[in-house]
């Protein structure tokens, strides 16, 4: 057993930390306030090699590991969780789908440029009537000469307005339930494909979240990805891997909450002493540090299992669940430590709480994660 990161893992961490401090941290508060999704940041992330970090070099990636990717998501999210979320959705879901299930042709056309950072990728599963229940998918794909015609609507799809390609799930075989769902690749600008970033969100405000209207969108046969009827079941590994990255965002927010609280506790004086000298505050900080460590260990274990090609679904559900709840607790305690100052926008901690809340909802709610874990225990 070895808990130590390899030297190149530490180099990835240091490089991304430096980059995040210099290129992403400035303006994070303003982007949150104004709801600005800054593509320039993603251009720079692409240059650094972040947008294809765990993808093989022959497909335009950096040839890194999922563990390194989880570390990178943590470091980005530590300064700006919104950027972390769009980064994670691009790599885990968009690029991850292409990497795991794309044909050679699809990889050439979409994976290579997406991994190089030439465009973002998105993954459209959720619908107004299909959240935790993917079986509720109403978007249909009607077989026509040479391809399919998609119609319906998707909701809460990260990156979908800016993305060069979006994976869209639709019912090809009604009556077969979740086995009748198939995934298709829809390139940006396809006729009838209308994404719009219309939400006024509580948090993750600098991440692009789109509604998509699909009005008779024709896609050719070779746009199908993962096989007919495999649009949900074939993508379970992609979704499991996505959970690791959501966990990593949680670790980043929790760490940022701890950092901000430690700083504040060392400055703020009450009753003639720094509040960090009071046990009431020390105990909160100790609990936060412990939960950060636990969340990080779980997330990194799940990533490591994936890198070792071992089953990781159970641990990734635990990592996602624990890290997102730890982020909520840490952000909430960070506000408590900051007192009134924590409740106003002059300090970043209220943003941490708003951002953290999404993690308990997106990519499988906390309730669904508990269900997954329970089923892993053999419970039905």
């Amino acid at each position: 057993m070895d808990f130590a990161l390899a030297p190149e893992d530490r180099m990835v961490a240091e490089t991304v930390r430096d980059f995040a401090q210099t290129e992403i941290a400035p303006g994070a508060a303003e982007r949150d306030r104004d709801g600005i999704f800054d593509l320039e940041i993603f251009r720079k992330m692409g240059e650094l090699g972040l947008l294809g970090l765990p993808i093989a070099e022959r497909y335009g990636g950096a040839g890194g590991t999922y563990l390194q990717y989880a570390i990178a998501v943590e470091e980005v999210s530590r300064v700006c969780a919104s950027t972390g979320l769009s980064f994670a959705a691009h790599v885990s879901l968009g690029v991850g789908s292409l990497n795991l299930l794309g044909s050679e042709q699809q990889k050439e056309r979409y994976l290579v440029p997406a991994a190089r950072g030439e465009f973002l990728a998105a993954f459209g599963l959720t619908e107004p009537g299909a959240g935790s229940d993917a079986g509720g998918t109403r978007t249909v794909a009607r077989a026509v000469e040479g391809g399919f015609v998609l119609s319906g609507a998707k909701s809460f799809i990260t990156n979908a307005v800016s993305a060069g390609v979006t994976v869209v799930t639709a019912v090809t075989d009604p009556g077969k339930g979740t086995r009748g769902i198939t995934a298709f690749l829809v390139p940006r600008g396809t006729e009838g494909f209308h994404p719009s970033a219309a939400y006024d969100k509580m948090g993750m405000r600098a991440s692009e979240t789109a509604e998509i209207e699909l009005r008779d969108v024709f896609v050719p046969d070779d746009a199908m990805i993962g096989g007919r009827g495999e649009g949900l079941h074939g993508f379970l590994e992609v979704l499991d891997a996505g959970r690791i990255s959501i966990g990593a965002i949680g670790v980043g927010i929790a760490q940022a909450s701890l950092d901000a609280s430690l700083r504040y506790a060392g400055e703020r004086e009450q009753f003639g002493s720094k509040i960090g000298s009071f046990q009431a505050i020390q105990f909160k900080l100790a609990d936060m540090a412990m939960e950060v460590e636990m969340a990080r260990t779980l997330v990194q274990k799940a990533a490591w299992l994936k890198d070792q090609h071992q089953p990781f679904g159970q641990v990734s559900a635990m990592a996602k669940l624990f890290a997102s709840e730890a982020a909520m607790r840490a952000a909430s305690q960070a506000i408590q430590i900051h007192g009134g100052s924590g409740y106003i926008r002059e300090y970043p901690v209220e943003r941490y709480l708003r951002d953290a809340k999404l993690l308990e909802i997106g990519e499988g709610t906390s309730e669904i994660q508990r269900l997954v874990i329970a089923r892993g225990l053999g419970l039905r």
Partner: protein
Amino acid sequence: MNVVVLVKQVPDTATRIKVSSGGVEIDPRGVNYVMNPYDEFAVEEALRVKELHGGQVTVLTVGGEKADEALRTALAMGADEAVRVSADAKDPLTTARAIASVVRELGPDLVIAGKQAVDDDQGQVGSLVAALLDWPQVTVVTELELSPEGGVAEREVEGGVEVVEFSLPAVLTAQKGLNEPRYASLPGIMKAKRKEIRQVAVDAAVTGEPVLRTTALHVPEERSAGIILRDMDAAALAKELVRLLHEEAKLI
């Protein structure tokens, strides 16, 4: 134009340093090591020289296996080759002798080092290497322009800038402001992992005897908190200040 860059691995400046039980070294446990920040400017400048004039960038360090990390960072930034020199280097002079012997063998057109390492702040090695090689040296360089025969460097001096002309081969030491070091790219990190680090042993006959010996190393004594006088009128305040300086601080 072939460039050798001298790099050193130093404790991250954010690390809390403890002195080890022997009292002359820092305790390496729990210390996060990074490439000396001034050496990052040196690596960046060497890469720019290569981009402009062609040639190769070789990074060189003296140390144990742990120091490979600093070399790999430079490789990830884009350096072509790395050499780790193992030698019994105990002070700046023995270190410089070891480096000079390897540089002589590599035969570069230019050697660039950071102006000083931020751990012991001696700032000697670059200059000593130049002296041992009998090459021109320009220290604290903030701007550099090269031609095949020589170069012009700007260096920081008190209250201004000095412009210096030199011939090649030469040794330069890099000051902050020389450039903006690039990030090690992530594909670069993965490629650097696969590159070989050449190990060169320099024996004691070459390094010779050290001329400096560290006899003690202390962390600064902790200072007690200051006293702020407030809520008094000027006369009372002055009186209290005099009393404290006389009775407590015993300064007057």
